[in-house]
C-alpha cells in the first residue's frame, strides 16, 4: 500500500498531470516558505546589548569586554550617537531607533547593557530574496520609522509591493501562511483525533455511550459554527492557540459523524466478529480492526476540512478575530486593504492575499480529489 507520487499520476493525461503537479508545487512552496520564514527573514529584535562610551563612528571593530552574548550577524540599529556596531557583518541600512532612552552617560569603559532594537540577519540568506529589516516590523511598527512607502505597487525592493503601512507584502504573506498552516493542520489533526475517537467509541460500543456521545456531537453540530468560534475566541483570548482550538471544536462533530458512520459499517463486518471469536479485547478490536478500516475515509475528509479551516481562519481574520493586529494573517491582510481600495483604488493590498488564499485552497482541493480517486480505486480492489 505504498503511496508514491508516481502512482498518483500514473494513468493521467499530460493535462491532468499539470493539474496535479502545479498545485503540488504551490502547496510545497507555501509550506516551505511558512516553515522557513524565521530563517529567511531578517528579524528585528529587542536585545540587551553592551554599550560603550560614545566614540567616533570609525571604531567599527570595538568589541567590549564582558560581552556575554553572541550577537552573530547583529547590527545595532540605534540612531544618533549611541549607535555602535558590535558585529562585523552589517548588511542592512539603519532603520530603527532605540526603544529605551540612550544612556550614554557612562563615561567609564565598563560594560553597561542596554535594550536596543537590532536587526538579525536571516539564517539562510538567499541572494536576491532580500527581506528587509522592516519585514517583520509589525512587532515594532510604531517605533521604527522606516523609509517605507505605503501602498506601493510591486517593485524590485518589494516583490509584491507594500501594504497600507508600508510593510513588505511578501514577507507578511509568508508569515501569514504560518497561521493558515497552523489552523489547517493542527486544528484539523486535533479535530480528527478527538472527533474520530468519539465516533469510533459510539459506533462500536453503541448503547448508552452512543446516545450520550452522539447527543453531545449533535448539539455541537446544531450550534451555529461562527457564533461558537467567536464565543470561544472571545472567552479564551485572541491568540493563535485559541483560534486553532476554536476551529478544532467546530470541526469535531463532523469528524465524529464520519467516523461513527464508518465504524457502524465496519463493526458489522465478519472480520470484527472473527477477531472477537479469537479473544480480542474491545480496545484491541477498535485499534487493530476498525481504525485501519476507517482511516482512509477519515483522512480524505480531513484534507477537505483543511481547506475549509484555512478559509474559516481567513474569515475570522477578516472580521478581526484572528491573531491580534500587527501579526499578519491572510484574512486580516485582505481586510487591511479594504480602506486603501475604497480611498484611492489601491487594489493589490487586498487582492494579493486573496489570490494566495484562493490558490492554496484550490490546490488542496485538486490534490485531495486525486488522492481520493486513488483511494477509492484501492478500496474497490480489496
Amino acid at each position, binding site marked *: 500500500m505504498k503511496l508514491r507520487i508516481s502512482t498518483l499520476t500514473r494513468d493521467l493525461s499530460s493535462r491532468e498531470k499539470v493539474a496535479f503537479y502545479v498545485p503540488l508545487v504551490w502547496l510545497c512552496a507555501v509550506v516551505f516558505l511558512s516553515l522557513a520564514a524565521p530563517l529567511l527573514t531578517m528579524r528585528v529584535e529587542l536585545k540587551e546589548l553592551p554599550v560603550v562610551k560614545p566614540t567616533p563612528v570609525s571604531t567599527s571593530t570595538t568589541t567590549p569586554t564582558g560581552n556575554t552574548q553572541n550577537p552573530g550577524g547583529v547590527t545595532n540599529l540605534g540612531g544618533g550617537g549611541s549607535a555602535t556596531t558590535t558585529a562585523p557583518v552589517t548588511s542592512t541600512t539603519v532603520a530603527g531607533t532605540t526603544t529605551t532612552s540612550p544612556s550614554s552617560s557612562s563615561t567609564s569603559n565598563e560594560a553597561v547593557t542596554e535594550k536596543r532594537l537590532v536587526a538579525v540577519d536571516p539564517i539562510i540568506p538567499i541572494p536576491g530574496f532580500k527581506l528587509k529589516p522592516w519585514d517583520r516590523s509589525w512587532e515594532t511598527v510604531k517605533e521604527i520609522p522606516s523609509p517605507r512607502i505605503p501602498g506601493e505597487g510591486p517593485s524590485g525592493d518589494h516583490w509584491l509591493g507594500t501594504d497600507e503601512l508600508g510593510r513588505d507584502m511578501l514577507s507578511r504573506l509568508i508569515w501569514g501562511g504560518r497561521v493558515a498552516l497552523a489552523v489547517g493542520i493542527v486544528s484539523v489533526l486535533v479535530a480528527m483525533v478527538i472527533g474520530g475517537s468519539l465516533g469510533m467509541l459510539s459506533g462500536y460500543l*453503541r448503547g448508552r455511550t452512543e446516545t450520550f456521545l452522539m447527543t453531545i456531537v449533535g448539539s455541537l453540530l446544531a450550534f451555529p459554527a461562527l457564533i461558537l468560534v467567536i464565543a470561544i475566541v472571545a472567552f479564551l483570548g485572541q491568540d493563535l492557540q485559541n483560534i486553532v482550538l476554536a476551529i478544532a471544536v467546530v470541526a469535531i462533530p463532523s469528524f465524529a459523524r464520519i467516523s461513527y458512520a464508518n465504524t457502524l459499517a465496519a463493526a458489522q463486518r*465478519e*472480520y470484527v466478529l*472473527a477477531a472477537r471469536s*479469537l*479473544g*480480542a*479485547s474491545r480496545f484491541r478490536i477498535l485499534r487493530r480492526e476498525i481504525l*485501519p478500516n476507517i482511516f482512509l475515509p477519515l483522512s480524505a475528509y480531513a484534507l477537505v476540512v483543511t481547506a475549509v479551516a484555512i478559509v474559516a481562519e481567513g474569515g475570522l481574520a477578516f472580521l478581526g478575530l484572528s491573531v491580534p493586529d500587527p501579526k499578519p494573517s491572510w484574512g486580516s491582510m485582505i481586510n487591511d486593504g479594504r480602506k486603501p481600495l475604497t480611498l484611492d483604488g489601491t487594489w493589490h493590498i487586498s487582492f494579493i492575499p486573496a489570490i494566495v488564499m484562493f490558490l492554496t485552497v484550490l490546490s488542496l482541493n485538486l490534490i485531495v480529489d486525486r488522492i481520493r480517486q486513488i483511494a477509492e480505486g484501492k478500496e474497490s480492489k480489496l
Partner: protein
Amino acid sequence: MSRDEFLRIEDLHTSFKTGRGIVRAVDGVTLSLARGESLGIVGESGSGKTVLARSIMGLLPPRATTRTGKIFFNGEELTAMDSERLRDYWGAQIAMVFQDPMTALNPVMKIGRQVTEHMIHHMNVDRDNAKQIALKLLTEVGIPEPGKRFDDYPHQMSGGMRQRIMIAIALACGPSLLLADEPTTALDVTVQAQILRLLAEQRAERNMSMILVTHDLGVVASNTDRVAVMYGGRIMETAKTASLFANMRHPYTKALFDSIPNLKNPSHTELTVIPGRPPDLVNPPPGCKFAARCDYATDQCRSEEPTLQTDGDTEHSFACWHPVGVRGKAGVSNA
C-alpha cells in the same frame, strides 16, 4: 447422560428483540459432544444453526439478545462466565471458522499478523516464535511458500486460500473445539472438498471436537460422526450419521434428503422441493414447526408440539408424532 461429555448444551434458548417482536432463533436445544467427536448441524436458511453456533461461543450482539440455558465446556459452565473470562477461552480453546473468507479477514492487515496476533496474546510467545509456529501452520493447511505469503494482504489471495488462512488462524492456539460455520459454502466444489479434507485431517491429528454447521447433507455425511437436523430453532432429529442416513425418521430430514438432485435422474427431471417457507419465528405456529409444510401433518401436529423421543436406537431421537418408517434406504447421497 453419562457419556464422555466434552461439551453439553442444556435447553438453550436464544432470542432477539426486533421491531416486530421477539424472534426465537434457537428454541430449546439440548446437545452433547464427546472429545474428538464431530457433530454436523444441518438445516435450511433461517433454521437457527448459525445462531446456535454463535450462542455456543457467546458471540452474540449484546443488545436485544437474550440467551438462557446452560452450556458446559470441559466441565466449566460457559454461560456463567463474564466476557473477560470467556476471552481466555475464545481463540485458545474454542475457535470458529466463518462462512465467508472474503469478509472474515481484515482487508488492511497482513496475513501473517492476523495469524500470529492472538497467538502472542493467548500463548505468551514472542513475535519471532509466533512467526515460526505460523509458518509451520500455514504449511500444514496447504499454503505454498508460506514465507512469501506471510506478508500478503487478503486481497492478494483466492477464496480457497483465504479459507485455509481462516482455518490456520482458528487452529493456531490448538483449540479443543472447533466451530465451523458453513466453512465451504462460499467456495467452489473442488476447493470445498480440499477444505473439508483439511478439516478432517486436522481434527484427527489434534483429537479436536468439531461442530460443522452446514445446509449440505452431502458435506455432513462424509465429515461427521453425528448429525443434528434443525428446523425453526429446534432440533428435529439427531442420530449417528450412518444411522440417520440409513433410517430417517423425521419427515423434514427426509424432505431435505429428497431435495438433493440425483445425478442418476434423466435430464429435465423436475427437482423435488419442500413447498412453502420456513416458519415465522416471531409468531411461530402452535404445534410442530414443520407441520405447515409436512405431507403427513395431522391436527395433532398442528396443535401439539412433539418432543424428542427415541424408538429402539437410544442414540437416534426425533421430534415427530408420525415418524416415517422407511428402512433400508441405505447409501449416502453425493459424498
